[in-house]
């Protein structure tokens, strides 16, 4: 027994040594993975910037980014007009429309899962919403095409294609992100908050509305921003229901395009400055994504000291 202890100590040290070796090795692998990701981001950014440069140079910022005149010319690209404002507006409009519905729905569902529902029901709801995240976008788009578009057409007397259909499809895509992240945030709140509130005589609703949701504000905001990112980038499902027109959308039932759907629609035979203008659209998308990420950074940094 008495000799057992030092022996064990030696063993532990040897094992620890082996562990550090392995740890270094793993560290190296991880570092490689991380560098590949960072390198890819930098390369993508540089590539897209380089490819969009001819359009920016030849057309000027105003004609490219702040014009709604999109009339490309396949056989003689320099003779076309390449204003993308219609599509930037389309992206913002459909995303805003989707957020209008998915934010209250998503946060509401999160509150239900975390605060209201009995354990078992919460689990069922949570699984259901997670399942929603796994459905391929083309399937959701297909449902939009055969159910949503005719329904909107009947209700409004329009063709049914347009911003409203696209926004509704995007609600389905953004909802899982917003709900699961919001539920996580609510779950991470200290239990004392709730206990204190209830002890002060607040009702359940008052506790949720006046204590829990305000305390979780930053986390909820991050959930919304990530959901927004999902909505902005979605291509396939949107393309199927938005109507792919080049008209500036002034009504929720107008047919238009977003940046992503326009890139997909026109990439086929694009060459020269036409192709470059499409890359400039990708650049705008990338910039929007970066702004969102920076927003998340800023918000989470603000949250840390609290």
């Amino acid at each position, binding site marked *: 027994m008495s000799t057992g202890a030092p022996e064990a100590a030696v063993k532990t040290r040897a094992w620890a040594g082996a562990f550090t070796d392995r740890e270094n090795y793993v560290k190296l692998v991880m570092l490689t993975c991380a560098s590949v990701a960072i390198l890819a981001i930098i390369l993508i950014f540089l590539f897209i910037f380089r490819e969009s440069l001819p359009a920016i140079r030849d057309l000027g910022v105003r004609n490219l980014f702040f014009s709604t005149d999109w*009339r490309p010319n396949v056989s003689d690209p320099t003779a076309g007009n390449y204003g993308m404002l219609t599509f930037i507006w389309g992206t913002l409009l459909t995303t805003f429309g989707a957020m209008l519905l998915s934010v209250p729905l998503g946060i509401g569902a999160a509150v239900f899962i975390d605060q209201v529902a009995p354990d078992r029901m919460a689990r069922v709801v949570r699984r259901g919403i997670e399942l929603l995240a796994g459905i391929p976008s083309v399937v959701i788009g297909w449902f939009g095409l055969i159910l949503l578009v*005719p329904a909107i057409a009947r209700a409004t007397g329009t*063709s049914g294609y347009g911003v409203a259909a696209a926004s509704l499809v995007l609600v389905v895509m953004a909802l899982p992100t917003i709900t699961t992240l919001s539920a996580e945030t609510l779950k991470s709140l200290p239990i004392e908050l709730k206990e204190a509130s209830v002890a002060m005589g607040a009702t359940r609703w008052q506790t949720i509305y006046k204590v829990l949701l305000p305390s979780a504000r930053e986390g909820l905001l991050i959930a919304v921003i990530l959901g927004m990112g999902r909505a902005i980038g979605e291509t396939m499902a949107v393309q199927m229901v938005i109507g792919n*027109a080049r*008209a*500036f959308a002034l009504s929720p039932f107008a047919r238009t395009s977003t940046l992503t759907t326009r890139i997909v*629609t*026109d990439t*086929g035979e694009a060459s020269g400055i036409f192709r470059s203008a499409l890359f400039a659209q990708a650049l705008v998308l990338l910039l929007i994504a970066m702004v969102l990420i920076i927003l998340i950074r800023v918000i989470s940094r603000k949250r840390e000291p609290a």
Partner: protein
Amino acid sequence: MKKSLCLALMLAVAIAFMAAGCGGEPGPPDTSIRGEVKVAGSTTVLPIAQEAAVEFMEKNRGADVEVQGGGSSAGITQLKEEVIDIANSSRELQPGENDDGSIVDHKIAFDIIAIIVNPSLKIKSLTRAEVKAVFTGEVTNWKELGGPDSEIVVVIRDQASGTREVFDKIALGATPEKPVWCVPSAIESASNGVIREIVAATPSAIGYVSYGYVNRMVRAVQLDRVAPTIDNAAEGRYVMARFLHMFTRGKPEGPTRSYIDFVLSDEFQREVVAQEYIEVRKVLEK
């Protein structure tokens, strides 16, 4: 015990895969046709020419067919400069392009563009002026053409489409220098099939597709009281139609001739060309 069994199984699978890989080795190559064929020109003909090249090279392992796009005009220019052997074209030769008669025309497919509407729409015939007014947005309600009081939903092809090019030219009177634009709210679709789906699903929609795509889901409209049929198009009464061509310098010989013969063969015409166009034999016989 279990582990070794597992290992053996994996080994067996691996060997099976390797064996399968070996099984794919080519037999004795068919050396009947050898040599290089360079093809370029129309992007409309490009998919057919490429598919033909792949199948042709599979059958003749000594042959090397290289297909590129570039547009009909560029193809004809390159053919005359002897850079390529075959120029693909979606248009006829223009005056001045074949003054010495050295270029030989091979018609490889026939394309008819049909204007389609939803079957519920009681519009049977449109004049060319009416078609232009509808597609450019001058007329936006079917009421103005004697139809129901509903907004016209225009469905068109994407920028890259050869069908759109022909439609714009013949129906809208567009030229390369002066393009005519369809109404901005028009739905752009990447394929004939999608246009048919949208028109079939939308009661007030109008669009255009290659003739091969017209079926019971949609109704083809007469143009100036002429129905889009093979007969009418072949005899020139229906104007929205065209041949697709392959041009050569003089009578083709060697691999160039074999390649064109392959494109014109019954099998290739039936299985590939007929997917989107009309077999050229059916038209030329008339």
